[in-house]
């Protein structure tokens, strides 16, 4: 707000000084926007092209013409992607649920610590470890040292290590704006610990917890490097896509149409979620 009221004054000053800020700032702002637009294009051109080429007769050719629905028809006729899809769906739901619970329970405990810095850093440590390294480390630890048989459970652990820090971050962001005096007030008014949690704390934490669920699901659903090593003989959706993309050229058309469908589902969910995060939370 303060910047809004200061703006006219700033312009005057800029006009008074020849090498003032406005002339300069217009230049760097254009440059900054151009750089950002370029990087965003690098992210989104492949996505748009993916959707376009999923309707092309030969997706890897580079020419979207002639348009056809063959890839989607092929997708319908092929059953090999169904099992990985099912595995991914319920596994991600499980990861999301566990993330929500742990992030809530531990997140609200962390905010009550006197010096949470070290604990938070340790919690966020997996964010600093590349997925492939974490996958290889967990693989060697579980398979060679503990000599366990890998399977869905190890994929679950690998994805949990990846998704939980993000979920924890979300809950912590919300929990850190929570005024602990509200709980004391509730207690003074005679509320039981459970009531205090459910009626006072929960409504405030709810966006963070739901966010944790959505983040957990999506992060787990698209996780590749950790699952790749921890899979045992199981296959999730990203592993299937990776196997198709890395080896069999003939199967690529299917992943084009499949990913397009997935993106079509994911984008609106993300859009609504962020709209909630920014618009709704901003009002509170």
């Amino acid at each position, binding site marked *: 707000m*303060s*910047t*809004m009221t200061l703006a006219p004054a700033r312009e005057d*000053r800029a006009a008074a000084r020849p*090498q003032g800020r406005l002339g300069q700032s217009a230049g*760097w702002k254009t*440059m*900054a*926007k151009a*750089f950002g637009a370029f*990087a*965003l294009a*690098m*992210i989104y*051109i*492949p996505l748009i092209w*993916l959707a376009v*080429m999923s309707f092309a007769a030969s997706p*890897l*050719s*580079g*020419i979207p013409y002639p348009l056809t629905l063959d890839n989607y028809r092929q997708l319908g006729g092929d059953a090999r992607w169904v099992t990985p899809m099912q595995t991914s769906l319920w596994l991600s739901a499980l990861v999301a649920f566990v993330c929500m619970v*742990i992030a809530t329970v*531990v997140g609200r*405990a962390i905010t009550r610590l006197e010096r949470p*810095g070290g604990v938070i850093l340790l919690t966020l440590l997996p*964010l*600093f*470890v*590349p997925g*492939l*390294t*974490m996958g*290889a*480390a*967990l693989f*060697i*630890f*579980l398979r*060679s*040292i503990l000599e366990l048989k890998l399977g869905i459970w190890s994929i679950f652990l690998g994805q949990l*290590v990846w998704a939980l820090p993000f979920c924890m*971050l979300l809950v912590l*962001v919300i929990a*850190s*704006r929570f005024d602990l005096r509200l709980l004391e007030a509730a207690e003074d008014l*005679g509320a039981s610990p459970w009531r205090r949690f459910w009626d006072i704390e929960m409504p405030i934490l709810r966006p963070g917890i739901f966010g944790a669920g959505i983040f957990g699901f999506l*992060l787990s*659903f*698209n996780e590749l*490097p950790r699952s790749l090593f921890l899979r045992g003989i199981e296959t999730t959706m990203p592993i299937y*896509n990776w196997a198709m*993309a*890395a080896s069999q050229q003939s199967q690529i058309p299917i992943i*084009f149409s499949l*990913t397009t469908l997935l993106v079509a589902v*994911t984008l609106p969910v*993300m859009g609504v979620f*962020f709209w909630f995060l*920014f618009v709704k939370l901003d009002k509170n």
Partner: protein
Amino acid sequence: MTMQSRSDSPALPQRRPFAKRLLDGLKPSRLTVPTFLLAWSFLVIAPLVVIVLFSFLQVKAYRVVYTPSLDTWISLIDSGRWMAAVRTLRIGITMTIIEFVLAFPFALWLAKGCRSKTVKAMIITLLTIPFFLDAASRIIVWRSILGQTGAVNTALMSLGITDAPIDWLLYSEFAVHFGLLGTHFPTMVFPIFMSIALIDDDYIQASQDLGGGPAQTLFNIIIPMALPGIVAGIVFTLVPLMAAFVEPQLLGGGFVDLLGNSVNSALQQLKYPTAAALSTVVVALLGICLAVLVLVTRRRYDMASMFVAIRR
């Protein structure tokens, strides 16, 4: 009921409810945080320690031999795998510099130059979404854009700019850089954006009022105050780059063998100590980066300020 009982005993000493409150408030955290940290250490720290130790072991006839040796490291150097490490470091640092040059002005504009909240929210959303998309299918598309018969070459040839397709566009280091660019941009923007957003506008205003030019304000005020974010951005970008394997595999066409691909192929060939040693290189780099991050951030910021930044 409760009101009744409260008013019944108004003479109770002040201490008791306080102690009770303390118990109520602390009891869960006393148990939950250590329990969680213990489980978390087992899942995260233990494997990372194990691979460092494991790189000094050998596997013979599918059994782990628990005698320390340097064989893995020696064979790693002899077999020329270290070339992959050097190449990874080179591509990693190049990409980090490119991302920083692109991201810093953009983050500065997003934090201080962009007045519209809607635009800001939209850009943050756009930057976050790629986190949630499957890497393999996102990267494979570049083949149809950069390939010999891909979109770029087709366009160039039909416009008459070139006669023959440009073949270094795909299956080259150039293509790998291209693929990495989009993937690692958001991780550079976010920390820098947050730390710049934290800087009070009054500091910038004061610098101008005291006659500082834009360059002086940038180098004396903004960059020093945003340093933790800059370091975090570099760490969050460089570390995953050290283990990139999707882009080099799909776009490098076998010419760009990075550490990530080496780890992947070593594990597939059941050369676990080799994979462990290669991962150790990544972990060592990670340790150095983290140490620098902690040293730099300790001076000015505590972790709590990070959350203030996210809220803004």
